[in-house]
């Protein structure tokens, strides 16, 4: 199968499965879970296959033109090292959270609608990643955002609606900023193709002020979607109120795809970023690491604590990318990969605790985790990995980012990165001490056993956490190195 024939499937398969789930889900009892299993399994296979095919192509870049009338009027889909990297990450996380949801979603009563929205969200994420056209990027960004607004409100309780409204308002403002920025770029270059805009901006004579204004609009818009520190207010509410598997998707891949991936794509490859933009990246990243780490320490709701920790980890990724050196970008992208494994794992643990003990509060769940063997062990691996303890994956990516900071003579930022890691360790160890290690207050017999599908996802993600460091070995390293090369334009 030709690689340019595969690219549209990343958008078509999730849409078709969303429709099929709505059609059959009402009549056949287990069809929703079955269809989502097949389609997400197919997506993970296709993404790995496309990434392997990409290695054999000279230049490591494919452009597929869909419905082309004339070259400048066609819809471009593009696969390069960075998009291949993101596709594999998104579809892997989607596969495991979908399997987890099959057991977990028994709590809620409308299974088909949940899986249909989930599928649409995956469609939006894949669309953002493989589009080479800046307006289509915006369209798929809105598809993913709309699906996630409604998934956050899925329980229709007061808290969930409040969180969803806040998220939707912030998201709509961000979208307006992004669309205005696109209008500015279009007015300067008269094209919507990203490589066309890049070459137009490089060759033409435009006032630097207009490009700067567009850059500020993009920074605010995509920064809101990525929840970097001054723009973070919606994230703790939305991520702690959503169903656990959706929190895992939102924290694990959605903020990275809609925020970090788009930021790096626009600033590194379209706007030809200078050092000015990058120092803003570094500053915001360092603030996020320290302040969100501190805020996480004081939380007593498990999912809220994890949400603050997500902001802190996004800070590491932005700091690494903002360094602009090959090692810094490598560290940032490697941390992005690792974070999309251990953060879903921790959110799934929180969901399992909620499923068995019916609480998200740490004090109320005191001692409940002791009897849950699988959740307890996988949570230990996830907690050690996110705080950067040596044999696990988080250690290597944080170490690379810190070394890159020191090499670039930014000792203050390196210090922030070390401090942030200690805060994360403290916050996660507080949860482990109270929930998983202390003795239960009363009746531990009320604890319900969790279904096999939830156990399977957590165990698989935990194994990936342990083996994550192997990505640094030469044969696997190409996977990240190709993405770095796209951003460095070599």
């Amino acid at each position: 199968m030709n690689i340019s024939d595969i690219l549209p499937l990343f958008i078509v398969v999730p849409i078709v499965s969303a429709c099929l789930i709505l059609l059959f889900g009402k009549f056949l009892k287990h069809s929703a879970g079955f269809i989502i299993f097949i389609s997400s399994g197919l997506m993970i296979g296709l993404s790995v296959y496309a990434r392997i095919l990409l290695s054999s192509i000279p230049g490591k870049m494919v452009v597929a033109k869909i419905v082309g009338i004339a070259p400048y009027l066609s819809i471009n889909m593009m696969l390069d090292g960075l998009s291949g990297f993101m596709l594999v990450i998104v579809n892997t996380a989607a596969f495991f959270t979908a399997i987890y949801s099959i057991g977990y979603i028994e709590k809620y009563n409308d299974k088909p609608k949940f899986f249909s929205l989930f599928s649409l969200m995956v469609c939006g994420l894949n669309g953002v990643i493989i589009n080479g056209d800046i307006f289509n990027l915006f369209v798929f960004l809105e598809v993913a955002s709309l699906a996630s607004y409604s998934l956050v409100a899925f329980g229709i309780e007061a808290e969930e609606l409040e969180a969803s409204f806040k998220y939707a308002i912030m998201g709509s403002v961000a979208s307006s900023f992004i669309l205005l920025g696109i209008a500015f770029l279009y007015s300067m270059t008269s094209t919507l193709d990203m490589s066309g805009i890049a070459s137009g901006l490089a060759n033409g004579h435009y006032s630097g002020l207009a490009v700067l204004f567009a850059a500020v609009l993009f920074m605010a818009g995509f920064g809101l979607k990525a929840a970097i520190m001054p723009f973070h207010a919606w994230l703790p509410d939305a991520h702690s109120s959503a169903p656990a598997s959706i929190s895992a998707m939102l924290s694990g891949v959605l903020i990275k795809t809609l925020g970090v991936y788009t930021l790096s794509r626009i600033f590194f490859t379209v706007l030809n970023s200078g050092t000015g933009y990058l120092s803003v990246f570094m500053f915001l990243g360092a603030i996020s690491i320290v302040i969100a780490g501190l805020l996480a320490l004081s939380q007593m709701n498990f999912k809220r604590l994890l949400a603050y920790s997500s902001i802190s980890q996004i800070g590491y990724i932005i700091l690494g990318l903002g360094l602009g050196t090959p090692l810094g970008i490598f560290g940032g992208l490697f941390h992005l990969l690792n974070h999309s494994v251990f953060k879903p794992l921790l959110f799934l643990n929180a969901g399992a605790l909620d499923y068995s003990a019916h609480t998200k509060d740490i004090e109320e769940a005191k001692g409940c985790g002791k009897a849950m063997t699988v959740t307890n062990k996988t949570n230990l691996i996830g907690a050690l990995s996110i705080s950067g303890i040596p044999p696990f994956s988080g250690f290597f990516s944080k170490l690379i980012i810190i070394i890159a900071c020191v090499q670039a003579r930014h000792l203050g930022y390196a210090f922030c990165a070390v401090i942030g890691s200690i805060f994360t360790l403290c916050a996660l160890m507080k949860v482990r001490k109270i929930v998983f290690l202390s003795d239960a207050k009363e009746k531990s017999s009320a604890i319900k056993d969790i279904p096999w599908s939830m156990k399977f996802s957590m165990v698989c993600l935990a194994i990936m956490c342990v083996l994550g460091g192997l990505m640094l070995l030469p044969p696997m390293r190409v996977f990240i190195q190709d993405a770095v090369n796209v951003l460095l334009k070599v």
Partner: protein
Amino acid sequence: MSLYFLCFILFCVGLYGVLRKRSVVKIIIGIAIMSYSVNLFFVVLGYCKNARSPIDSANQVITSTVDPVPQAIVLTSIIIGLGVMLLLIAIAGKLYSKYGTFDITKMKKLKG
């Protein structure tokens, strides 16, 4: 040139509504104003004096047309805006039935 600035002022009016108003309904109206101002900005970008619509037809000599791409973009963007608006209104309705008010300062079950 002044048209562009007027669009931008409209955008700022919408942003003011979102940031300063306390009623859920007024915030939603602010969002609507923001998205309309961006749509208007796109239409103004494609405008060209004494030009006709970009539709090809026989037996006519076409000298200049307006830029069709912004018009296509605006159509798509209006539809997306409609979807967001419907979702926001649905959530606002549910919020009213849960809290009994449209005042966002009284909706604070989530904090910390």
